[in-house]
């Protein structure tokens, strides 16, 4: 009688252990899925990388690179050739409608450096150079993770010993994979 009782208790304890084991395993799996399932938003980093690539393409050692501005003072980088000259590729993976709608945009503005202006920006030196999906600009003043990420940076550079501020605005959409 006693032996039978003990066997019954052992069985109940085994079932209990399996239930507990299952609950613990399920909770760990759930936590891992929640933790690793959420995407990292890397768009700001991507936008900064694009800005760095453009800045490197335009200037070196604090001065504008040869071939960026010609003898007549005109910008050699045009909307048509900037992607190839700066080794940028806006092709993206075939995901949702990304192929139809470009996911990147940037614009470069050259301003004369004006020490009296609070933002240091004087008159525009040359026309803007732009590339990518211009519509993305519309979302820059919107706040929220579902909108494209806009990053704007300035840097100081010398063009034939004259000081300029170059303003680069970079926008990355890719909302579906980052939010």
């Amino acid at each position, binding site marked *: 009688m006693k032996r039978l009782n003990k066997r019954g208790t052992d069985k109940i304890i085994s079932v209990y252990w399996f239930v507990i084991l299952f609950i*613990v395993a399920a909770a760990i799996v759930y936590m891992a899925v929640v933790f690793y399932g959420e995407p990292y938003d890397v768009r700001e*980093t991507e936008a900064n990388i694009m800005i760095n690539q453009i800045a490197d393409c335009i200037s070196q050692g604090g001065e504008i690179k040869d071939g960026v501005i010609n003898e007549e003072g005109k910008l050699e980088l045009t909307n048509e050739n900037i992607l190839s000259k700066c080794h940028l590729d806006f092709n993206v993976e075939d995901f949702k409608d990304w192929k139809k709608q470009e996911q990147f945009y940037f614009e470069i503005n050259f301003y004369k450096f004006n020490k009296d202006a*609070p933002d*240091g*920006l004087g008159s525009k030196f040359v026309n803007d150079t732009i590339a990518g999906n211009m519509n993305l600009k519309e979302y820059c003043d919107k706040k929220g993770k579902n909108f494209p990420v806009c990053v704007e940076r*300035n840097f100081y*550079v010398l063009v034939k010993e004259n000081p300029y*501020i170059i303003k680069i605005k970079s926008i990355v959409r890719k909302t579906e994979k980052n939010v």
Partner: protein
Amino acid sequence: MFNNRKAQVGETVTWMVATIAIVVILVISVLIVSIGPFKNREFRESGTSDLLITKSFTGYLLTDDVWENVKDKKGFPRDPKVKLEQSNMDLAINIFPVLYSGNELNYIWLGIVDSTCKFGSGCVVSQIPFGERNKRNLVGKRFFYDNIKLNENSFIELVIKIKE
């Protein structure tokens, strides 16, 4: 018989308490993960270098006679009150705060530092009056640091800190 029953009740209570403890710990962990800070994960670069700041810093040093003035101050007295040349100083005050939009900047420091001395305001040979050179400002995720050696004993340093 009684003793046996007491022992059985005691054992059951122990198991129940243990089960409740396990369930409570799991529920708390799951709740923390579900509502915790992992939901909106932003990836930001770490490190203390920033290409655009370095480019601007180099551009600044190449402007007019800034580099000549900075480089030739070998005999600078060890006095923080001694400033860089006024024109160079004004230029720096105009350049560096505009690299980031105003509300993003937390701290800027630019000056010449005695490299033979340990960290502290006493090491400052000369500085732009943005603020004090303070170790407290060299912590955090978003500060950028650049320096250029001037001679064996000194270097020019730029620190820019962005609000986190």
